[in-house]
């Protein structure tokens, strides 16, 4: 009985097994949403927290920091920072690399870039850049 039900589960009712077998030798899915939807949920969840955005800001100011450097001057415990970094890594917003004995954390802007590619049209980019620059200049002028 159990064996039968497992066999049935091996062949999903939604036809995804058929879809897989039809994929070309080039491994094209021809549907970027397949690869896009789940990871994007993780990105938005990770960004919906001020502490995690603060950690990304710190990496944006200086990339490639150790955990100790990231914790320095923050009102968060080391454990809390570790927990947030794990969520950011799962969302692919932070990547780590070993350098000698140190584990360095890097801001990975690729998922944010992909959000931009999805919602910003090509011809809008130059205008948005110009507006962003204008806003920056006006705000700097207030100092």
């Amino acid at each position: 009985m159990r064996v039968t039900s497992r066999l049935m589960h091996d062949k999903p009712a939604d036809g995804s097994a058929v879809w897989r077998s039809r994929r070309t030798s080039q491994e094209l899915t021809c549907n970027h949403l397949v690869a896009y939807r789940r990871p994007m949920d993780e990105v938005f969840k990770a960004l919906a927290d001020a502490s995690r955005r603060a950690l990304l800001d710190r990496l944006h100011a200086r990339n490639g920091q150790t955990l100790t450097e990231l914790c320095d001057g923050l009102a968060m415990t080391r454990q809390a920072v570790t927990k947030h970094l794990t969520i950011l890594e799962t969302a692919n917003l932070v990547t780590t690399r070993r350098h000698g004995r140190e584990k360095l954390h890097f801001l990975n802007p690729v998922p944010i870039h992909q959000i931009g590619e999805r919602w910003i049209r090509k011809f809008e980019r130059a205008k948005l850049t110009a507006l962003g620059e204008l806003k920056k200049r006006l705000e700097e002028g207030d100092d």
Partner: protein
Amino acid sequence: MTEPSQAVDISKFKPETVYTIYIAASPERVWEALTSAEFSRRYFYGFAVEADLRAGGDFIVRAPDGSEHISGEVIVCEPPHRLTITWDVNWPGLVEALGRTLVTYEIEAAGEAVRLTMTEAHERPLSDDILSGGRQGWPTILSSLKSLLETGKPLAVKTSPPARMLAALKALGVALPG
């Protein structure tokens, strides 16, 4: 897989920029896209990658005008999982001013997709102004590579080198092309 080239001591290079992207393709296809001119011209602003895929082999990135933008060397070659190359841009005086650059691609299977990580490592500490060139370029190049492999079409994004990088290079005495 071959023994790493003795040309550079990888441990001396510090990672400065690391980008990771998930691509719905096989490791072999991603490897091919990273190492063949036919693919790279489509996602890398028309630049052609010409790689002699063995440690010590040449790694050339040729600009659309036929000039060698990068005349590098293959340091580690483990198809289809790891490729480390020297990535020194051929602008006069650049390597003297900045030291050498290493780029490593790591390709790991992640379910039905792969996780591609690009690490740009440098021999000397560099300012954010200098590093802004790679930090602006790589996300576009990697996103375009992903689109090409998943949909058959690259992204049509045109960027030019950031002004702050050009100014910083000029201040260091590097002759800028054009």
